[in-house]
């Protein structure tokens, strides 16, 4: 699951029509994980992954920091409060939002080579 090969976030941004929410919008992605259960992410995601979720609460940032997640993609057009974005900026975590649903976004990302 963990590969040394990384993908630039910027190279897959277009396929999911994602809007960066944080000042930083670049990361080296090691893969992707989809879950809306935080403990599940803590247990199964790996560092450097893109995490796809519908949750926008600040716990997502705590969870991402704990696991060194590279970027978080909020799907279905969801966006967190500015305070959450500020916290992500402070922690160096990239936040993105797309109107696509998780399944579609994941499919596009897989096709684009994020595996």
């Amino acid at each position, binding site marked *: 699951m963990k590969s040394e090969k990384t993908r630039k976030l910027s190279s897959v941004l277009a396929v999911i029509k994602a809007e960066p929410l944080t000042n930083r919008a670049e990361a080296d992605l090691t893969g992707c994980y989809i879950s*809306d*259960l*935080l*403990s*599940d992410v*803590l*247990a199964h995601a790996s*560092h450097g992954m893109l995490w796809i*979720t519908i*949750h926008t*609460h*600040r*716990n*997502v*940032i*705590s*969870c991402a*920091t*704990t*696991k*060194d997640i590279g970027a978080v993609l909020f799907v279905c057009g969801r966006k967190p409060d500015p305070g959450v974005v500020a916290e992500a900026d402070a922690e160096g975590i990239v936040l993105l939002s797309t109107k696509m649903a998780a399944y579609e976004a994941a499919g596009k990302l897989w096709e684009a080579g994020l595996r």
Partner: protein
Amino acid sequence: MNATIVKNNGTRPTAVLPDAAGDRCSRIPEPHPELTASAAVAHNAVAIKLENSMIAVTMSEGPSTETGMTAGKPLKVSVAQVLIYELRVRDAMTRPPVTAGPGDSLRTIQHLMKTHRISGVPILQNGVPVGLVSIEDIINALDQGHVNDPAERWMTRNIVALRDHFSLVRAVAEFDRHGFGRFPVLNSSGVLVGVITRGDITACLMQQLEKRAEEAAAREAALFSGQTSDLEQTKSVVVQTEVKSGDYDNAGKISQRMRQILRARGVDPDIQRRAAIIAYEAEMNIIIHSIGGDLSVAISPGKVVIEAVDRGPGIENVDLAMQEGWSTAGPLARELGFGAGMGLPNIKKCSDQFEIHSEMSVGTRLHSEVLLSQAAPPPKPEEPI
């Protein structure tokens, strides 16, 4: 406020308010966490709330009833309410007092007031207070063209003095009761040591609140932003915090701080993450499932020890709780993404040593240890086969 000064040309001695019981507001008990509302309402001329380092002060002109408290019921005591019981008149009064003699002219005293920006001057005769000239006395005298008269002809003689060891809450009550703008303050030997006004009390409370807020901020900064000494390899550091039930908004700070320290000490990133997961999950367990508890992280050169102790209600079936997918989390926790039923299994998986004890209606104690090793040196290039 409009003080009423009763002129009295007799020679009544200075009344010093007694310590004795029986007086409505005498002998305020030592600060106690369970002050009752009735006591607080009686002295609630100054109502101050300190929350999250934000300070809001309201000072009412008279006895306040807008407290939102119900008499008789125990209430949560704000920092300021404790302060006005803890702080003494001597802490807030202006000292040394600016005084004048009975023979000094009102004009002289008026200049004293102007220079020192005060509104009342005690009059001493042989070191003993015999009266007080207030700005009102001077205005009265000016009105009638007697501004060059000696103080003794116009001073208020039946003055009321406070003792320097009185609490500020009592001082506030005395201001309400007497309507004076200021009180002379005597020490236990009856010597005039200062003068106190309502403004002095407000200023003192503000200063103390600011001091406490700064101390709290400094503690928080020390906890979360990193004292460099904490980052030294050989030092043992204990980070501890109270975790409140349902406080989803503040979760994760301890684990963040721990990560900072471990990172700075060059601990292997995988081990850092394992320790962080344990601290975060343990904190979330207290927030989601308990009525509150404490989380402590002790970092020593060899290991990290994480302890989460809550005050109940306890886990009914620990074996079941250790099963992946088993959760008793409520709807709010689930809405926020918790309740996967993986918290305890995650903690166990990440720990090098793990213990959990729970007793119904007593609480749960979780103990986890992670052994530390330094980051592995960069991998050697593989030998060509």
